[in-house]
């Protein structure tokens, strides 16, 4: 029952994130979507991914909030309340298929010996190290650009 409620909330918040005109409300709905996805992951025993999703989601949403507040203009005309209710009704309709329909069965009794830390470090170690390298390069590039800009001004 909890999973079904999460799915309904997920679809409704995702639809509102796209539908709403005001950027701040839209980003707030996206925040709801990301939080619900993280809860869904943790309920499906993918705790590490849930933590990563939350961490990345918080950063993305902070930047999105700032940019939506700074850069986007407010919508001139307000949409009537009837339209918002219609959007929620459409989203509720969209959330019915995942609850009642199925495209096929995924075998649930497949077991694997590989644990998450082993998979991360033994099988995908190169990826992880390369990602760290890329992030370090980007961070140092930003620092150099900012430093040169500061030097140019002074």
């Amino acid at each position, binding site marked *: 029952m909890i999973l079904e409620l999460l799915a309904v909330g997920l679809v409704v918040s995702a639809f509102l994130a796209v539908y709403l005109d005001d*950027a701040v409300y839209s980003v707030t709905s996206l925040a709801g979507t990301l939080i619900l996805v993280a809860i869904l992951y943790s309920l499906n025993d993918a705790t590490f*991914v849930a933590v990563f999703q939350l961490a*990345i989601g918080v950063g993305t949403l902070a930047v999105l909030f700032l*940019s*939506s507040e700074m850069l986007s203009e407010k919508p001139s005309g307000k949409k009537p309340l009837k339209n918002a209710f219609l959007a929620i009704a459409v989203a509720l309709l969209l959330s019915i298929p995942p609850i009642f329909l199925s495209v096929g069965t995924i075998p649930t009794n497949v077991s694997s010996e*590989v644990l998450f830390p082993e998979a991360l470090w033994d099988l995908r170690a190169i990826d992880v190290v390369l990602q760290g390298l890329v992030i370090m390069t980007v961070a140092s590039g930003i620092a150099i650009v900012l430093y040169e800009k500061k030097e140019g001004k002074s």
Partner: protein
Amino acid sequence: MDYVILSMILLAIGIYGLLTKHHLLKVLISVELIATAASMNFVLIASSLNKALGEAFLILAFSTDTCVTAVVLALLVIASKKYGTCDIRKLAKLEQRETIEGEEKSNNEISEDDV
């Protein structure tokens, strides 16, 4: 509950946003939704099969997703500062006008040189 259908619906909502919205921020939100749908499919199938490799692979997908967000946000800031708008249609028109003006300018310079 079927997670494949749930992720397909999230994907459909994201594509709907990409096709109908013209603000760059809305486009970014739609791209985020599409990426969330793809990664959700990946994680939930991997966790239902008890395969930790899928979850480990997802971390790469998350970092790619963050890079995409950073690039689109940089475009948003540049467009907003340079042109004063974030509407894709207006930006496309401005770009066309700039291209035509640039071509006319270079043609005039060439004809003056000939004279």
